[in-house]
C-alpha cells in the first residue's frame, strides 16, 4: 500500500519469536473516541444486543418466538418450525453468510469485524464499563501503575464485578436460546438450573468475560480465522482504512496555526492519537496491516485533530489502494465498486438468497416416512386377500393440530383396512400402523410398487406421494 510516497514509513519492529509472542503483549489502553464512525459502531452495538438479549423473551403462537429446542430437536423461528430433516436450510444459510462476508469484504474490507462481530461489540461494552468506572486512558494507566491500595482494590472490584454481571447475563441469554426461557427464569431464584444448563451459562459467561475483558485484540490477532484469510478477498479497489501518506508525510509537530507548507512538513502532526484509540494497538500510518479490524476509530480521532489544527479532514479515511495511487475521488471509487469480483459475489449471493426464500415458501407442511413392517411379510388373510403392514411416521410441520387422510394406489383392488385417518398434534410426529389388503391374484409374486397418498383433511389440494413396495408371498 501507499507505494507512491517517496520515503517509506517507519516499519513496526518485528514481532518477537515463538513463545514470547503472548508474554510480551503490551496492554493496550484504548482511548475513547467520538465521531461519525463511533456513532455507527454504537448504533450496531445497540442493534445487535437488543436483538440478542431481547429475542429469547419474545413470544409467538404461545411459545418462545426463537428457540433452538435441543431436547425436542426442533428449531422454532417465529412462524417456522424446523426439524432435523431441514438441515438443508441451515446449510444454505451458512453459504449465504459466507458469500455475504466475501461480498462486503471485497467492497469495504472488514466491515463485519469493525462494526458487528461479537468480539468487537462485547469489547466495546466492556471498555465502556471500564471507562465509566476507572476513568479515561490516562487515569487507567496511572491506576495500573499505582501500588495496591483500598481505593484501587475498590475500583478494580467494581469493574470486575460489573464485567462479571454482564458476562453472566450474556451466558444466561445464550442458554435461553436452547432451553426454554420460561423454565430457566423459574430456576433463577433458587439457582435450580439443570447441571448442564448451569455449566453452559458459566462457560459462555466466562468466555465472554475472558474475550471481551482480558484478551480483546489478541482474539482478533491470534485466534480469528477470518483475520488470516481476509487478504484473499481484498483487491486494489477494496475500501480500507488508509492513511494518506502522500499528504501526511513528512510528519512532525509544529506550532499552532502554521500551515504544512510553511513548516516544510506534511499534514500529519504526529500527535499519536490514532495509535492511542486503536483497539488492536497498531499504527495505521504503517499501511494496511492484518491486525486492523477496520473499526475506523482512527478516522474519527484524526478528523478531530485536523479540525483542531485547521487542516481538511480525511488524512486517515476509507479509501482504496488504486484511489490513493491514482488520486481518485469519490466518484471513481464508487465507479470501481462494480467490478468482476463483486459482480460475481453479488450474483451468487442474490441467487442463493432467492433459492432460500423460494425453498422456505414452498416447504411441505407435511412429511411422511414409511417403514414396512419386517416382522410380517405378505400374509394371507380371510377373503382371499394378502395383507402387508406398514408403519408410517407422519410429521405435521404446522403449528395447528391436523387430521390426515391416507389412500393407497398401484395395484388393482388395493385398499386400507380400518381407519384411513390420523390426527397429529401441532408440530408433532405421530406413528400410524396401516394394514393394506390386496386380492391374492392382483399382483406378481415378490415386490410390487405401490404409492401412498396423504393429504390433510382440511386441504385436499396438498397431496404427498410416498412410494413403497407391497410383497406377495412366492
Amino acid at each position, binding site marked *: 500500500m501507499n507505494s507512491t510516497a517517496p520515503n517509506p514509513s517507519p516499519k513496526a519492529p518485528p514481532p518477537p519469536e*515463538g513463545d514470547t509472542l503472548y508474554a510480551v503483549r503490551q496492554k493496550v489502553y484504548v482511548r475513547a473516541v467520538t465521531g461519525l464512525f463511533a456513532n455507527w459502531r454504537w448504533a450496531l452495538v445497540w442493534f445487535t444486543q437488543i436483538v440478542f438479549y431481547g429475542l429469547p423473551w419474545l413470544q409467538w403462537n404461545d411459545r418462545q418466538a426463537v428457540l433452538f429446542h435441543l431436547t425436542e430437536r426442533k428449531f422454532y423461528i417465529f412462524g417456522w418450525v424446523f426439524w432435523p430433516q431441514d438441515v438443508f436450510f441451515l446449510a444454505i444459510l451458512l453459504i449465504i453468510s459466507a458469500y455475504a462476508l466475501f461480498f462486503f469484504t471485497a467492497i469495504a474490507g472488514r466491515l463485519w469485524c469493525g462494526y458487528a462481530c461479537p468480539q468487537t461489540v462485547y469489547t466495546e461494552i466492556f471498555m465502556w464499563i471500564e471507562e465509566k468506572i476507572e476513568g479515561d486512558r490516562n487515569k487507567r494507566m496511572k491506576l495500573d501503575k499505582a501500588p495496591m491500595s483500598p481505593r484501587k482494590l475498590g475500583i478494580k472490584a467494581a469493574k470486575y464485578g460489573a464485567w462479571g454481571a454482564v458476562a453472566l447475563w450474556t451466558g444466561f441469554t445464550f442458554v435461553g436460546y436452547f432451553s426454554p426461557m420460561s423454565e430457566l427464569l423459574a430456576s433463577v431464584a433458587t439457582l435450580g438450573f*439443570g447441571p448442564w444448563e448451569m455449566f453452559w451459562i458459566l462457560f459462555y459467561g466466562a468466555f465472554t468475560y475472558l474475550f471481551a475483558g482480558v484478551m480483546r485484540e489478541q482474539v482478533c490477532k*491470534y485466534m480469528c480465522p477470518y483475520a488470516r484469510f481476509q487478504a484473499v478477498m481484498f483487491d486494489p479497489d477494496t475500501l480500507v482504512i488508509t492513511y494518506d501518506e502522500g499528504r501526511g508525510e513528512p510528519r512532525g509537530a509544529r506550532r499552532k496555526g502554521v500551515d504544512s507548507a510553511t513548516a516544510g512538513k506534511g499534514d500529519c502532526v504526529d500527535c499519536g492519537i490514532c495509535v492511542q484509540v486503536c483497539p488492536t494497538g497498531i499504527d495505521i500510518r504503517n499501511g494496511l496491516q492484518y491486525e486492523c479490524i477496520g473499526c475506523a476509530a482512527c478516522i474519527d480521532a484524526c478528523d478531530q485533530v485536523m479540525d483542531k489544527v485547521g487542516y481538511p479532514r480525511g488524512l486517515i479515511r476509507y479509501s482504496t489502494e488504486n484511489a490513493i495511487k491514482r488520486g481518485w475521488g469519490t466518484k471513481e471509487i464508487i465507479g470501481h465498486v462494480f467490478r468482476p469480483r463483486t459482480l460475481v459475489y453479488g450474483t451468487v449471493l442474490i441467487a442463493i438468497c432467492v433459492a432460500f426464500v423460494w425453498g422456505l415458501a414452498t416447504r411441505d407442511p407435511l412429511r411422511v416416512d414409511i417403514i414396512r413392517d419386517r416382522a410380517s411379510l405378505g400374509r394371507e388373510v380371510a377373503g382371499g386377500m394378502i395383507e402387508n403392514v406398514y408403519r408410517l411416521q407422519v410429521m405435521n410441520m404446522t403449528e395447528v393440530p391436523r387430521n390426515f387422510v391416507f389412500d393407497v394406489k398401484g395395484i388393482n383392488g388395493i385398499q386400507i383396512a380400518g381407519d384411513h385417518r390420523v390426527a397429529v398434534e401441532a408440530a408433532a410426529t405421530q406413528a400410524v400402523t396401516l394394514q393394506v389388503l390386496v386380492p391374492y391374484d392382483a399382483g406378481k409374486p415378490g415386490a410390487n410398487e405401490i404409492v401412498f397418498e396423504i393429504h390433510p383433511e382440511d386441504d385436499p389440494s396438498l397431496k404427498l406421494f410416498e412410494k413403497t413396495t407391497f410383497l406377495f408371498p412366492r
Partner: protein
Amino acid sequence: MQKLIQVLWPSFLVAAVVEAVFFTVIDPQALYLLGEPVHYDPLTTYSIGFLAFWLICAASSLTTLYFQRTADEINHPEAH
C-alpha cells in the same frame, strides 16, 4: 500460554462444527452406550458429546504441536 491456545482453540472451533453436524444427523436418543441405549437427557448427551469432541480434537492439535518440534529442539531441549 501460546501453546495452550494453539491446542485448545482450533480444537474448540472444529469441535463446534463437528457437534453441529453430528447431532443434526444423529438423534442422541438413538445412540447406544456400551450396548445399552443412552438414558441421559438430550442436553447431557449434547454436552458430553461436545466436550468429548473437543477433547479428541485437542489431542490431535497436541500431537501436531508435538511433531512440529525441530531436530534442534529435540537435541537441545535445555536451549528452548
